[in-house]
């Protein structure tokens, strides 16, 4: 059990993809690396139970681990961790649409972002995403459309400057 050649092959083939997916979830490279490491350790431990396609399983660990880290993170002390609700660009400079879209993505909550990433980055259908997230496909569908709606209205929101007075 210590040597499962398929595990090494899987990681070699998928690590870059997993790193990117993890980054899109948490938006920070060191955290992404830790996330992938943790997911792979869990996957390794469960490898004998995983069937032909490990992707859904590994994605599920990535998403769940990320969610649990967000819950557990230190108060005030993890500035490199996932972006919480980030205010939009704080000054009057007009940013390009794609920058705005990226910023807006950061303002989605972890669940919505996971669904969006699995749909538009991993290119999975609603059925697979539902399987990974452990929710009915209908819920996933409405979650994604709600996320898209949020992104669409994001620019209209007046950015609230933070950090000076509260």
């Amino acid at each position, binding site marked *: 059990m210590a040597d499962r050649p398929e595990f090494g092959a899987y990681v070699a083939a998928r*690590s870059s993809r997993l790193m990117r997916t993890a980054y899109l979830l948490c938006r920070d490279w060191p955290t992404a690396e830790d996330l992938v490491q943790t997911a792979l350790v869990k996957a390794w431990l469960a490898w004998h139970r995983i069937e032909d396609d490990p992707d859904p399983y590994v994605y599920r660990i990535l998403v769940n681990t990320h969610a649990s880290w967000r819950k557990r993170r230190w108060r005030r002390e993890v*500035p490199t961790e996932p972006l919480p609700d980030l205010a939009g660009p704080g000054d009057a400079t007009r940013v390009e*649409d794609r920058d705005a*879209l*990226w910023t807006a993505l950061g303002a989605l909550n972890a669940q919505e972002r996971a669904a969006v990433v699995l749909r538009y980055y991993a290119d999975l259908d609603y059925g697979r995403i539902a399987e990974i997230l452990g929710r009915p496909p209908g819920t996933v569908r409405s979650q994604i459309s709600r996320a898209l709606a949020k992104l669409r209205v994001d620019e209209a929101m007046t950015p609230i400057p933070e*950090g000076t007075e509260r």
Partner: protein
Amino acid sequence: MTFTEDDLRAVLAERSTPSRVPPDLAGRAERRGRSRHRRRLTVGATALVTGAATVTVVVAQLGPDRPAAPAFSPSPSILGGYGKVVPVPDVTSLNRPEVHASLRSIVEVTGTAPRCRRRLHGTGFVYARERVMTNAHDVAGVRGPLGVRAPNGDEHQGRVVLYDPARDIAVLYVPGLAVPSLGFNRTARAGDVALIAGFPAGRSKPLTATAGTIRTRQSSSGPDIYHSGQVTRGILTFSGRVEPGNSGGPLLSDEGLVYGVIFAAAPDDQHGGYALTADEVAADAQAGATATKPVSTQACVD
């Protein structure tokens, strides 16, 4: 904002591109998985008593992918004349007089932020005459003087004379603080052994010192402490045990110099933490070394 699904695909693909795949992911996962079977993290706690002072030192075993697992060293190092004993984990290169001496320069910082009804607690270190460096988030929103407790138990009062929420650095001016200053070492590299020192245990608890290893030196972008903007900073990621009160404390080299300022724990606490590099904090260190005028610590952080 108008965008198509293809825009969304493009943004996700684009933003995730500079993906650096860490070497040997599979091997590391396997080793960690295997040793998790055997209970991965062995944490030993030992208390030594000198006179009336009890010092607890937590020794975290390095991850299995590290070259050497430090065992606890029974030979204590004495903080000369300070009445406390702080054993240093037995990573041989850390068991040196310079390292032991450097622990005298680490202080506990406490303050009160009345507007958010919060008492703050963190670690700092003396880096220039009567100047203590710590994290901005450790003193954010504080009003009134800060409590600075030296390792010998002496209490002093300090005030914030430099506040840099973007870098997460603050400098305190502490008149009368007669503690030697720590120097910086800007050459930290992956694989270097380091000591995580600070006051994670809480108010008026002893200093703890834990061994770690530097994993990477890199630039990292993330929100500033108020989440009001993105900042890119030079950081060290390291393995070892980091707890909330550690923030603001130094990551020390085997020569007792400051590799970096610890500011965050990895979200999975088995994975160590993050420190701002000595280079990153150099400008603030210089500006703070001669400052005496109090500055605002702005608002509390969430």
